[in-house]
C-alpha cells in the first residue's frame, strides 16, 4: 500500500495490517480496504495492529466493526493490538467482540 504509516504483511499464518497513527475520514477508506482485502485472502488469523495509533475517529471504528462482520462470515480469527487506543476501544465495547493484546508479539503467539 502506498498510504503513509500503513503496512500490510504476512507473518506465518497471520495477516497483519498496521494501522496509521491517526485514522479519520481522510484515510479510513484505505484502512477499511486493506483490512477487507486481507480477509478475502483466506488467512486463518488477521491481526489489526493499532499499537502506533493515537487517534481513531468513529469512521475508523466503523471500519473495524465492518472487518469483524466480514471475519465472522468467513471464519477468520480476528485479533487487535492496541495501546493508546485501548481505553476508547474498551469504552465502546470492542473488547467484547475482538480480543485485544498489548503488543504484536502477544497477538502473534496468542493461543499457540
Amino acid at each position, binding site marked *: 500500500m502506498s498510504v503513509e504509516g500503513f503496512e500490510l504483511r504476512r507473518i506465518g499464518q497471520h495477516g497483519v495490517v498496521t494501522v496509521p497513527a491517526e485514522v479519520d475520514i481522510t484515510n479510513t477508506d484505505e484502512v477499511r480496504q486493506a483490512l477487507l482485502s486481507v480477509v478475502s485472502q483466506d488467512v486463518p488469523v488477521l491481526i489489526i495492529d493499532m499499537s502506533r495509533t493515537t487517534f481513531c475517529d468513529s*469512521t475508523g471504528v466503523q471500519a473495524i466493526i465492518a472487518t469483524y462482520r466480514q471475519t465472522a462470515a468467513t471464519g477468520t480469527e480476528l485479533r487487535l493490538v492496541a495501546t493508546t487506543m485501548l481505553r476508547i476501544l474498551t469504552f465502546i465495547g470492542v473488547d467484547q467482540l475482538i480480543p485485544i493484546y498489548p503488543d504484536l508479539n502477544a497477538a502473534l503467539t496468542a493461543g499457540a
Partner: protein
Amino acid sequence: MLTGAERTAAELERTRAVLQADTAAVLLLDFSSGELIATAAAGLEEEVRQGVRIPVGRGFAGRIAAQHQPVILDHVDHSTVLNPILLAKGIRTLMGVPLIAGGKVIGVLHVGSLTPREFTSDDVELLQLAADRAATAVHSLMAQDDRIAAQALQRSLLPSALPVADGAEMAVRYVPGEGVVGGDWYDVFTLPSGHLGIVVGDVTGSGLQAAVIMGRMRSALRAYALDTCDPAEVLCRLDRKMQHFEPGALATVAYAVLDPGLDRARICSAGHYPPVIASPGRPARLADLPSGLLIGAAPGAERPVATIDISPGTVMCFYTDGLIERRDRPIDHRLALLCQAVTAQPPDAACATVMAALVGSQPAHDDTAVLIFRRKPLGTR
C-alpha cells in the same frame, strides 16, 4: 434547490448550443439505490418529468457511470439503451461523460443528436469540460443541501424545552461541529410510571444520513421506553431494531432511568462514555459503569446495568465524544479534566463551567452535546 436546478438547466442549454446537439441531460447518482436519476434536461424534458431511473452498469448512462469513462453510441437501439424515451424521441447518436467530484462518480451528462452524426474527440473534451464544471457546482449544492437538511432535522429532533420533573433541574449545551453536522442527540422524558428517562447518544458518521438515523433511534428508544423501565431491555430492543432495519449503522447510547423519587438511577451504556457524578462536598467521578457493546455492531450483546444512588444536590453530567476527544490529548487526561470541571452546582452554571474548561475558544471538529441533571438540594423549591 430551485435556483440550483435553474442554474443547471441554463448550463445544459449552453452545452447543447455549443455542441450543436438536440438534447442534453444530467442524471445524478442516488447513492442509496445505486441508480442514476434524471435531474435536468434540455430538449429531453420528459426524462426528468417521468423520473427516469437507470441502474449503474446498465444501459447507456449506466455504462458511463460504471466505467468512469466517456461513451459514444453511434447506433441508438434497444440493445444499447435502456431508457425508452431516448428511442421514442428518435435520437440517433449519443455521447456521454461522467460527472466526477471528489474522485467519485456523482452522475452522468449526455448529449444526443436526432440526425446521424459523428462526435469527435474534441466534442468529448468539450463535454467533459462542461461536466467537470457541472460536477463541482452540483457537488457543493448537494453538500449544502445536505448540511441545511441535517441541521433542520437535528433542530427539530432535539427537545426545544426540557420536561419539568419535580425535584429535577436540567440544562443542556449543544454545539454542531465545524462544517459538519453529526448524529449526536440527547433526550429527556417522563414515563407514565413516574420514572424519568435521560438519553445521550451519538450516531457514527455525519451529515444528513447520520441525522436521519439519529431521528429513527430517538423515536424507537422512546417507544421502547414506554414498555419497560429496564434500561437494558430498552437498549436490547433498540439494538435488535437497528441491526434489522439499519444494517451497518453504529451508535453509542447511554440511557438512564431515574426512580420517581429521583434517589436512584439505573444506567445502561451501549459503548457510550459514562456520565460524571458529583455529590455536594465530594470530588466528581466517572460513574462506575460496565461498558456494553455499541449499538449495531453484533447481535446478542450483553447489556449490563449500573445502579447509582443520587443524594440531594447530586449532579450527573452526560456528554458525547465531541466534548472530550482531541487528537493531541490522551483520553484519560480529558476525562480527568472533565471530572475537575463538574461540581455539584446548579445545572446551567455547571454546563457553563464544563464548556469553558473543555471547549474554551477552540472550534470543535465534532458535534458536542452536554446534558447536566441535578437533584434539587433539600430545602430548595
